[in-house]
């Protein structure tokens, strides 16, 4: 346990830079690669968002042709989902799961290397479509036929890159399941595991269940476009709505793939800074499992206006509303964890509280749009845009940033500047509301989503939203500064526990954590686990 970030020893063998970062089978290095890659993609996808908000700053077309705007919205969605949120959660899983369950590494280290290295190539393919004749795919991230079939041949590159991303995330999930089920140290019972491990165990099953469904759907699109099939061509007996059913059978569990690990992270952070055990640990695990199960039964709520039969509308409305119950349990349990605690507000806690507040706003609008008649007035408007950005930015992204602030001292061995971390939080939490809250008003007023230009009645709130957007985008540069400073320049050493009330195996390791986490299974002392003595 003598390794440092500067000189890494793999047994007795000294790794060159190339060996360490390109041929790595180490869960921490691969975790770092995942996180660095998604950090980079955050700014790629974010720059598209800045261009979108710049065009929407005022009515009229100022910067770009409408088709290019559609390319930007489509690629913004694809990059943020597959290039930022999903890989950063996988990066966190890589770093933390072996450390949290007392394992030396992931169960399948070479598979781990493969599943990461598929990503850069997939995104090179995806982004290269911007430079192809006909431009990037412009039919939205949902890629609905027949519109997507009108695009240029670049759609083939997009579909192949989605295949690669699918393989990558399925392999990553297999690895996580294998690790959690097989590599736990003796005494680390499933019901003593940290919530983050639980959330990823369940998420992994969702990934394995639905990524192949997406691959199948886009493969049918590929065949329709290039090989003369007519799966979705109405003129030849195909059905465009079938694509939507298949897509959203993937798409709704995908929503939970992007939020369940966030639940895990927040369930880690809140008890530490409340100095009180997580309220209702078993209920939290059960709620995640419930949400995961129900996520397979609600896909058509993305399609309430396509002309489903009445019975279908009602069934999917009820199933969707049912999801609010376990989700509510989680929120109530976090609040109950804080209740009568001894709270302090270090940077990770601020982000976790920000998550609960912002995710709840997204949850409330979710309940409203579960009501079929109301959804008829919301569907396809900016209210939907506001809803999923509250859950994905205010929810998923906030939790990821919170996780980085929580575990970065453990990874790097240094403390970051909490002043800048807190400034980053306050600037983000205000600007994200300036950005997305007015979009709810725009949606109510009837502004459709995915439009580059709009009536002057929508001008004022759009301008407010764009100002919030530029503000939020610029604020994330603080994050870059804090992370680079902490990893390379910070002189302040982190202790092994880092946070006063942090319990769990990861905090028994020194900071920075050794290259291999637990070369021998640790002797587990239940009092050192966050949930060691809670289960009966």
């Amino acid at each position: 346990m003598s390794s440092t970030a500067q000189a890494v020893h793999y047994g007795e063998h000294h790794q060159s830079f190339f060996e360490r970062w390109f041929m790595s089978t180490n869960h921490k290095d691969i975790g770092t690669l995942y996180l660095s890659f998604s950090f980079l993609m955050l700014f790629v996808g974010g720059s598209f968002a800045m261009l979108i908000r710049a065009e929407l700053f005022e009515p009229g077309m100022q910067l770009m042709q409408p088709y290019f705007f559609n390319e930007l919205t489509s690629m913004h969605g694809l990059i943020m989902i597959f290039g930022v949120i999903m890989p950063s959660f996988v990066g966190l899983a890589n770093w933390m799961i072996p450390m949290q369950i007392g394992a030396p590494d992931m169960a399948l280290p070479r598979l781990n290397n493969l599943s990461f290295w598929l990503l850069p190539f997939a995104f090179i393919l995806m982004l290269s479509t911007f430079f192809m004749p006909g431009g990037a795919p412009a039919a939205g991230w949902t890629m609905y036929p027949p519109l997507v079939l009108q695009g240029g041949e670049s759609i083939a590159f997009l579909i192949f890159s989605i295949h690669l991303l699918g393989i990558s995330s399925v392999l990553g999930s297999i690895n996580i399941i294998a690790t959690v089920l097989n590599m736990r140290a003796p005494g680390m019972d499933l019901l003593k595991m940290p919530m983050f491990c639980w959330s990823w165990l369940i998420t992994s099953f969702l990934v394995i269940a639905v990524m192949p469904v997406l691959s199948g759907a886009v493969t049918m699109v590929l065949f329709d476009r290039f090989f003369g099939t007519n799966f979705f061509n109405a003129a030849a007996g195909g059905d465009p709505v079938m694509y939507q059913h298949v897509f959203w059978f993937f798409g709704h569990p995908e929503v939970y793939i992007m939020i369940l690990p966030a639940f895990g992270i927040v369930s880690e952070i809140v008890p530490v800074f409340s100095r009180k055990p997580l309220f209702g640990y078993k209920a939290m695990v059960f709620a995640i499992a419930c949400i995961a199960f129900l996520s397979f039964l609600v896909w058509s709520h993305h399609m309430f206006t396509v002309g489903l039969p009445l019975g279908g509308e009602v069934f999917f409305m009820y199933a969707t509303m049912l999801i609010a119950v376990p989700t509510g349990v989680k929120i109530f349990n976090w609040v109950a964890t804080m209740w009568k605690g001894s709270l302090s507000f270090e940077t990770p806690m601020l982000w976790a509280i920000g998550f609960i507040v912002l995710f709840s706003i997204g949850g409330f609008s979710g309940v409203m749009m579960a009501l079929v008649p109301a959804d008829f007035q919301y569907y396809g408007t900016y209210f939907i845009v506001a809803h999923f950005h509250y859950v994905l930015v205010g929810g998923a992204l906030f939790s990821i940033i919170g996780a980085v602030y929580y575990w970065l001292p453990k990874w790097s061995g240094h403390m970051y500047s909490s002043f800048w971390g807190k400034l980053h939080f306050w600037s983000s939490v205000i600007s994200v509301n300036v950005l997305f809250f007015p979009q709810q008003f725009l949606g109510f007023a009837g502004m459709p989503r995915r439009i580059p230009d709009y009536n002057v009645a929508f001008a004022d709130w759009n301008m407010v939203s764009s100002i919030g957007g530029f503000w939020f985008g610029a604020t994330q540069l603080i994050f870059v500064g804090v992370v680079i400073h902490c990893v390379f320049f910070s002189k302040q050493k982190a202790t092994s526990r880092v946070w006063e009330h942090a319990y769990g195996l990861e905090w028994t390791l020194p900071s920075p954590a050794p290259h291999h986490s637990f070369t021998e299974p640790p002797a587990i002392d239940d009092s050192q686990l966050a949930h060691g003595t809670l289960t009966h």
Partner: protein
Amino acid sequence: MTMSSSNSKRRIVGTGIALGALLVSMAAAANPVPWQMNLPQGVTKVSHQIWDLHMAALWVCVGLAIVVYGAMFIAIVRFRRSKGAVAGTWHENRVLEIAWTALPVLILAGLAAPATILTRDMYNATDSQMTVKVTGYQWLWRYDYISYDGKPVTKVPTVWSRLAWDSNTARQLDSGVSPWSVVDKQTGEHDYLLNVTEPLVIPAGVKVRFLITADDVIHGWWVPDFAAKRDAIPGIMNDAWAKVDKPGIYRGQCYVLCGQDHSAMPIVVKVLPKDQFNAWLAAQQSKATLDKAARTAEVTPPQPVPAKG
């Protein structure tokens, strides 16, 4: 089921009908206004009921937000370590957990019941007195009158409804024309991207059924004030209906991404009092009969629609 029985049930379950009726009388402008923050109430019974449901759901959410955020706020203020708060060690409370599982179920059921009944009504397009076929194209709408008052409508030319030319000029990149300069000559209303060359004309007080489809890609036909909305999908015939009592001009936009000019295919419906509509329809028919050059394919004898009212 008859309309009257569903009406009575709607009355039982629907929340705040009287309040809704009061608010109808002070309904805001029909089209989006600057700084608008809420759904329009619209001009149909269904749109009012949806508005009531929307407000009920909104207030439920506000109430829950007050409870959740209030509890968090109190915890943040009272249970701070800096104020010497000592943490408890409890981490379970069976009663509390059952309560906050069961209570949301009841609240949600309270919203789901009226929503279910309203959904059923929205799906009930029976007894419509007029049928109009709506077809979405990249990037315009086509309207065909199919039947009215139990008779097929013939001789009324297809309405091709595309973006008005002044909007179309202004929306081009670097057009140099301000979107604020695009106004309706008569009303002064800013109708940039919300006006068409030729609107759909329908009669007031008549239940109109819209058969909605598309010819190329998926579009979406929606008039917010009617709460009539369905995806327009190639190969599929969807239906929606509206009974509009208040004459006027109502605007909407395509809501399903349909390519580069998705923002440039508005929907404009002109609702005329029934007698004026009948006169308009008769005028269309006689114009079509006279204009033989444009209608050379027409072989069936004219079938005048009986003028009413």
